[in-house]
């Protein structure tokens, strides 16, 4: 199977500083690639480069079988690789949920009625149908994240690029998101600090270190350490 993305020797600078310095990766169909790294390592920069929002100084990006360099060459990539922003509020710009989810399909050339139908179908599939007439800015943080995901999925992308998707989610929305993502067939690159989440979702891990991507692996073992509890007076004693 030909890879969806092949990146080789990517160099990208931001604010005069080389954030990516020879990063390489391959994403094959069905793979779920986790990318980890400390704050400021360049994880967001990497995802942005893959769809041409960040300009590469050196290196090559091959996406969906073709080399991509110019804005024009990247445009079709953005329709086929859905990018979930680190901040959902930036991604929801239409007044109502249904408008927002239908925005992508409309841009793909669907008629308004078809676009609205597809948007509604995606919302239903994510069990968000009841939100469709809601005003986007009145959604809770977790709802915003899921609606943003619906907007991306409505374009029927072949790959997903997810930038810290579990950020600022409460437990309910966290589990919903994990269930949804686990059930999706397409390839993904997931950036996150959330190890249990990555462990359950991803098939392979890369670590971003000094601007390069290094293979990494999850590794789980029993571990003994001091566990810090807080006991509240009046609660039942618990067993350890």
């Amino acid at each position: 199977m030909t890879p969806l993305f092949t990146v080789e020797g990517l160099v990208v600078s931001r604010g005069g500083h080389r954030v990516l310095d020879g990063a390489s990766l391959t994403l094959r169909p069905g793979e779920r690639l986790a990318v980890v790294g400390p704050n400021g390592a360049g994880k967001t920069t990497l995802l942005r480069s893959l769809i041409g929002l960040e300009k590469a100084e050196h290196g090559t990006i091959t996406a969906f079988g073709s080399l991509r360099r110019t804005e024009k060459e990247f445009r079709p990539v953005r329709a086929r690789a859905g990018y979930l922003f680190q901040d959902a509020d930036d991604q929801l710009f239409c007044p109502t949920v249904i408008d927002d989810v239908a925005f992508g399909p409309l841009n793909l050339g669907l008629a308004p009625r078809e676009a609205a139908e597809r948007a509604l179908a995606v919302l239903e599939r994510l069990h968000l149908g009841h939100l469709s007439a809601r005003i986007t800015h009145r959604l809770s943080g977790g709802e915003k994240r899921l609606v943003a995901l619906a907007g991306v999925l409505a374009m029927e992308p072949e790959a997903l690029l997810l930038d810290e998707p579990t950020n600022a989610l409460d437990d309910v929305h966290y589990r919903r998101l994990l269930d949804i993502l686990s059930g999706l067939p397409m390839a993904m690159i997931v950036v996150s600090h959330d190890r249990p989440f990555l462990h359950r979702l991803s098939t392979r891990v890369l670590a971003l270190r000094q601007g390069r991507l290094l293979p990494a692996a999850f590794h789980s073992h029993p571990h003994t350490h001091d566990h810090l509890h807080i006991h509240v007076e009046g609660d039942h004693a618990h067993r350890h």
Partner: protein
Amino acid sequence: MKAPGFDRMTPRARLLATLILTLAVVALRGLPAQGAALAGAFALALISGQALRPLLHRLAHVEGFMVLLLVMLPFSVPGTPLVTLGPLVLSAEGLARAIGIALKTNAAILIVFALLGTVEPLRLGHAARGLGAPVRLVQLFLFTTRYVELFRDEIRRRREAMRARAFARRTSLHTFRAYGNLAGMVLVRALEKAARVEEAMRCRAFDGRLPAIGIEEGERGILAGPGLALVVGAALIALDRLP
């Protein structure tokens, strides 16, 4: 927000009725018709079923230049003297003028409040589109409503942070500088948000042409409300102009 009174009128019909009625009110010249207009507008506000407290609050607020205008009119319009205060002469015609303006102004405020007070800005945008407003203007309006609350919250949080550092607003250079910085900071954040939103649009295959977002279809009952407004407006003007 619930307005049992006008729930069944579509936003487009309400907008049209508002335009007709305010236009009629503005054209009135005599006190009897102006008084009738105010009474009718007040009845409309009652029917709309909204809480009247914010409305009364609003009516109590008069801009500086309006105070000046209303206070000076009785003295500057020549006519039958009612009261003489030294060099100042309060004329009956001037007083009628001032009262008339106050009646019309308040009637118009009541009409807007009664008919549009419960319409979501979003639906109003679509209504304006239905009445022929330019698409881009309506889109600008709709996108703006999307962001107003976001920035109201941001400004509220920042002002609280200022108060938490013992800031008390006064008429001072320090206060003006603080507010200038506040506005500057919020604008910078807004510009960066704008850049990210533009990217988000490009990521969803946006090619420079906004789809005509969700224009509401199938508004019925377009005629009843505005038709009634037309009749009422015409009746008011007739009352005003016919001897």
